């Protein structure tokens, strides 16, 4: 199961209310994924599972390799427009 970062949030009020109604204390160490409330430690373990351990090769493709892709003019213009709209301010 892939847990996207945006799917993980603080317990919603509904959950808190439900816990309150059931007489259960609200556990601040829990996170909600969809409708399921799970312990934060379990959520953290699931997130870390997205970072599998892999063996990084010593020999690599050369730096020319990423230049080989064909970027269409339409795509190029579209992304150029994004950067015209908002350009990062670099520290100088």
């Amino acid at each position, binding site marked *: 199961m*892939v847990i996207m970062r945006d799917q993980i949030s603080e317990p919603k009020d509904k959950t808190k209310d439900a816990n309150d109604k059931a007489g259960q204390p609200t556990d601040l160490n829990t996170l909600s994924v969809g409708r399921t409330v799970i312990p934060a430690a379990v959520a953290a373990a699931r997130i870390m599972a997205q970072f599998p351990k892999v063996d*990084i090769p010593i020999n690599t493709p050369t730096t020319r390799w990423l230049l080989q*892709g064909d970027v269409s003019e339409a795509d190029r213009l579209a992304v150029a427009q994004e950067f015209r709209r908002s350009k*990062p301010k670099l520290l100088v």
Partner: protein
Amino acid sequence: MYLNLESKAVSETPATTIVPVFKPMPGHTPRSAKDRCKRIHRYVSSLATAASAQLKQALFVLRNASTELPSPELQAAARKQYSQAEFLSATKELLCIWVHLEAVDQGGETMSGWLIEFLQFSLASTDFVIEQPSAQSIMEEHGDCTETKVLIEHVCQSISHRLGYGPMAKLLAPAFAPLLEKSRLLRQQALRDALTIDAAEL
């Protein structure tokens, strides 16, 4: 190496060991061309900002440690002022090589087609952030490097030249190696953020 420019922002193990790597999955594929453009914009922008911040930090450390350098010429070089052109040129090179290193970490030619395109497009898009030197020229410059260790040595010397150290460039070059060797965590956080953030937040 005369200096150890350890950065507080990035710290991890050398490139040849087994390390945790963020591996994008099919669920991370951008949903449309527009969505991809926005995610590329986010990825390249955050990487560029991080590259300039890391380089600036390294130059502060180098300047502060200048008195420890073994010759007056090296000390003077480490204390020099940097023009905007010098700094942006070095930042651009760092940015482009970070995208390349990310592609290597993601398995090079074995990675998914959509991710290859994403990184190729990202590399090309670095020209929208810093126009010169072009990404093409930077990558061509190091095109003969087939091992990461050699690539890092070449890039460090190139960055050192771009920063205007003149005859001292070769001697100061190793000081910039940590910016490449210890960049994985920072790079992968940027990629993960760009591919997993909710479309509404882009």
